[in-house]
């Protein structure tokens, strides 16, 4: 990424964020800025706080201290203002979380129709186009349980994209998938990244990080220990923890 593409105000900015689960200090003074068009890959051992970090960005997890800004505006505490802000932030979960009682098409149109007030016809046209883009258009009339995990996750991506978000958050999007389905989901994500989408991706997929990641953020024990280009991080990690981590995911 060239400096000119970086706008002045980051799309997402975390300033000294602190978060506890009871006695557990899961995020310790975390600061991070994500600029428009940037793909930030967050890695780290389990329990390092990377998922929590991702979930604080749209306030699925409230924070105890610090500040989170979306395009310079502090994230609202709750109510309509928060809902409106969430509508602009796409999120894809580890376990897909499609609405089990609605068709694939409905899953993608519900957000635009209910939240943005898009007319149903228009929402359906958009949805079919998005489903085509992620390669599951033929499944539009089925319900989620009839699809494979990889297909469900691609629908979940289309559902988030239907809101035309400013940024997409991916919380371990391939961790619940069978190995043969991981690539079909990663391909969609690569396409998004190459299309200029701003993305925060919590994942262990190093190939993905190397291919489209602009920056890798390494977390351990609730702190960001390293930040750098994927190449630099994976070949020359600076900290002992990062070296151990990279060894552990490459170890065989």
């Amino acid at each position, binding site marked *: 990424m060239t400096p000119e593409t970086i706008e002045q105000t980051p799309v997402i900015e975390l300033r000294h964020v602190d978060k506890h689960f009871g006695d557990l200090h899961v995020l310790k003074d975390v600061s991070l800025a994500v600029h428009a068009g940037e793909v930030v890959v967050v890695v780290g051992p389990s329990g390092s706080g990377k998922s929590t970090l991702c979930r604080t960005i749209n306030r699925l997890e409230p924070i105890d201290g610090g500040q989170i800004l979306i395009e310079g505006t502090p994230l609202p505490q709750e109510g309509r203002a928060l809902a*409106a802000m*969430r*509508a602009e932030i796409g*999120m894809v979960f580890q*376990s897909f*979380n499609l*609405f089990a*009682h609605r068709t694939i098409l409905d899953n993608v149109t519900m957000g635009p129709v209910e939240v943005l007030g898009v007319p149903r016809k228009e929402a359906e046209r958009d949805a079919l186009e998005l489903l085509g883009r992620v390669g599951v258009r033929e499944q539009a009339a089925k319900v989620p349980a009839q699809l494979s995990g990889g297909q469900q996750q691609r629908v*979940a991506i289309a559902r*988030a994209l239907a809101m035309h978000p400013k940024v997409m958050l991916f919380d371990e999007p391939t961790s619940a998938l069978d190995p043969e389905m991981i690539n079909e989901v990663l391909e969609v994500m690569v396409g998004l990244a190459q299309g200029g989408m701003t993305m925060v991706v919590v994942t262990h997929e190093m190939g993905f990080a190397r291919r489209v990641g602009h920056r890798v953020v390494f977390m351990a024990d609730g702190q960001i220990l390293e930040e750098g280009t994927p190449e630099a991080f994976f070949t020359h990690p600076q900290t002992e923890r990062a070296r151990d981590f990279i060894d552990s995911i490459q170890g065989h």
Partner: protein
Amino acid sequence: MGFAELISQYGGRYLTALLTTWGMTAVSYLVAMALALVVTVMRVCPIKPLRVLGDGYVQVFRNIPGVSLLVLVVYSLPHLGLVLDYLTSVIVVVSLVASAFGSENFMSGINTIQVGQIEAARSLGFGFGQIMRQVVIPQALRSVVLPMTNLLIAVMLTTSLGSQVPLSPNELTGLVSTINTHTTGGIAAFAISALGYALTSVVIGWVGNRIDRRVRILR
């Protein structure tokens, strides 16, 4: 008095009683479902006093015997200036008790929905009301068809509380009391009413099963 005599002498009144039981059941059940839905939404809403109120409602009406509640409604409410006729009193009692159980059914239905779906809805910008209408209630409804079928049968049987107050016309159980005070119908008089309850239950159960199979959510 044998079956033949009872039927020839009271057949028409049995039929009326059956229809009365059905009517009381239908009205009580509809009211109970509406109340149960409201109470359940209160119990899961973000406002704590409403949650406490909803939980309290269920504890109260689930744990008071129907007869006691009927005594309270018939004898105590007039002191508060609220006089209900007997039929209404019975329907109110049955509805209150059934709504508490109905709300428990809904809660178990809500618990079958993965929390991830709620988070997905929130991340799309859905508010509490939209999450309830679009995600939670439709799925909860569809997963509680069988327990709600059982509740409908229980409601029908509970309308026999109507035998404890003067109703005109009688419902099925009340009619037995009436017949047995006029003649000696004995156990046969009960048996005819029981047959009315039993056949209705069988039909309700069958329909409930059919509906459940049609609306059940694939997981």
